[in-house]
């Protein structure tokens, strides 16, 4: 990962499972491109596209509709998508939703139409989603929190 390449990170300590991120995405694009899972109401996981360095969704696309930009974003040219669902099957993280909107798979673009960054991060009600570079992530020790104070590891 490039040092200045920003990604969507989850601070597990803060996620309350309010699904505001999903609503923000749905409100802007008509369908949510960020997914959500929970473990017995104890821990919540919004699942955002990782914009992989070597994206398997792009490799699986038979029409080269998904491409990696110079800035490291994995973007989809929706107009050319035929809805074959190859990308959905290929994503190792299960981020791409099975349902198609207008016969097109829904792929996160990290809200490239919005200068201030992704809408899911901006709207996150509890401040759990963050849009950071790897360097910034290390500084705020999200990983340490995950194992030390996260509700998942000390639920009753």
């Amino acid at each position: 990962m490039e040092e200045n390449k920003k990604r969507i990170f989850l601070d597990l300590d803060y996620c309350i499972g309010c699904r505001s991120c999903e609503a923000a995405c749905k409100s802007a694009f008509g369908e949510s491109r960020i997914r959500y899972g929970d473990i017995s109401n104890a821990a919540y996981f919004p699942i955002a596209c990782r914009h992989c360095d070597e994206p398997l969704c792009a490799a699986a696309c038979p029409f080269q509709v998904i491409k990696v930009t110079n800035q490291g974003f994995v973007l989809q040219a929706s107009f050319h998508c035929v809805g074959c669902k190859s990308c959905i099957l290929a994503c190792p993280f299960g981020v791409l939703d099975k349902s198609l909107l207008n016969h097109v798979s829904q792929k996160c673009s990290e809200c490239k139409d919005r200068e201030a960054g992704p809408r899911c991060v901006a709207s996150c009600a509890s401040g759990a989603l963050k849009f950071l570079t790897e360097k910034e992530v290390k500084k705020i020790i999200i990983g340490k929190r995950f194992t030390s104070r996260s509700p998942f590891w000390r639920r009753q």
Partner: protein
Amino acid sequence: MSNTSKITNTVCPFCLYGCDLSLNTSNRGDFLIRKIEYDSQSAINQGRLCARGNLANTIIDDKKRLTSPLFNNKKIDWVIASSQISHQLKEYTPREIAITFDVNNTLEELDSIFSLANALKVENIACSYLEPETFFNYSLPDVKYAELKDIEQAKVILIIGDVFSKIPLLAKPVLDAKFRDRNNRLYYIDSVKGRIAGFANKSLLVKPGTEPLLLLALIGIIGKTTKNIIGEKNYRAVRKAIPSIVEVCGVSESEIEEVAKSITSLSNGVILASVDFGKTDDPLLFSALSQLLQIVTPNDKKFCAPALVSLPNGKNKFGELINAVNQGKVKAIINFGDIFPDYYPIVSSKLQNLKFFASTTTRLHNLTRPNWVLPVPSLLEKAGTIKTLWGKANIKPLAEPVNGSKSISEIIEKIVPDIELTSKSRINDKIMLNIDEVIERAINFLVSKKESTNEITILGEESAFGYRGMLLEQANHIKINPINAEQLGLNQTDSLKVVTNTAEKVFITNITNAVPINTVSVNTDSKENRSLFPMQIDSITNDIIISPAKGKLVKVA
């Protein structure tokens, strides 16, 4: 093709948190595209929004929006509608008319509604928003209410009920306060192990509907200050009741003592309370005892009850209205609001034979009775004043009112030309409670709970993301304890029918330890689920109480 965009700012009107809400409207050719914008500089919410606020643009563009008056579900012209409504209202005496309003009105509109009642000499005026949180309008003297900074700086936070579902934005200041110092404490009281349990240092999970009793035990255990405030006689009665409370609530005395000791000793604290539809047996006691706990707890504690809305005129007299309808005194209702009567099937079934004059934004109504339905702008298309937790706020229109709609004041002026405005909605914000009466009611409540049976209890739960059916996948799910599931031979995702005195519905089973034994929990953002819960009229306040339902579970093959 022109391509312009404009940002409009307002205060989100969907709850009391008062978030700044911005809408980016761009014009691409003939198409208007509305997208929510997030202003990171906003003082209250820093651009954050919950699911409801995020979906504000979809409310404006909702395909179900009404664009023409309807008479018995047939479109009719505004001019004919206005004259016929004025004419038809004259057929009734003032005593035969009731006026109802809900929370989708600004304070100025409420003034107009109260003025209409004055002009028509109508005495039956009630709020049709019947959520239990309206009981937070009943207040004890000397309650200290929290400001946002009190929550941010708190060292100990006690949460009663699923506050994060009611107002997700409160999670940020609460969790910031908790994580600021490892000695800070977060305690949680609820009957269902909700989302807050994962964040709390300690969760006290009580038996269904008994939250007020646990609060009474905490008040009794706190001791010295309690005695001074509630008086020697009441204090002795509360102390005497503690062993019974422990038995009824199912929480050990040592756990209650631990929480009481912690919230008493730590300075700077907040008590946050919230109550869901069909979750507690006595919402008035829930409200009163959570406030009393704040009053008796020493070392600078503040109270915050983030109810979705507060009633502008305090007392909700809907029970009196139902009684009048039952006695055949009321024959017509003029309703101003979106959510009634569809939102409360049990209540609206009592009003089947009345003539309805309803103003609303969407075709929500499923009225079989003779009715008028008039389109009005939604709260997002109005200017005016609303209440927030932190004081009053001005809302501005994010979009032009939908074509064909008329404002509530315009409608009222058509009914009564040259109406004289009153400012009745701005007074009587809170209705004061008496501590002696509260303690007496609590002790009586304890006695009634001791006699309760072992029937299955059906609890209501709100979701943080359910609003008018949007993002609501779980309305068909029912939470059931593994022990009950085993007794019924249920596996995950099996079908389970719930039968109560008022309705029955088939759900998909979700087996979880989050609900206690002999209790199931359903989402109450869906009106079908709401119809499972019984309605009672409180004998003291004449308000409507919708408590947890009793019923049976039947496995569906």
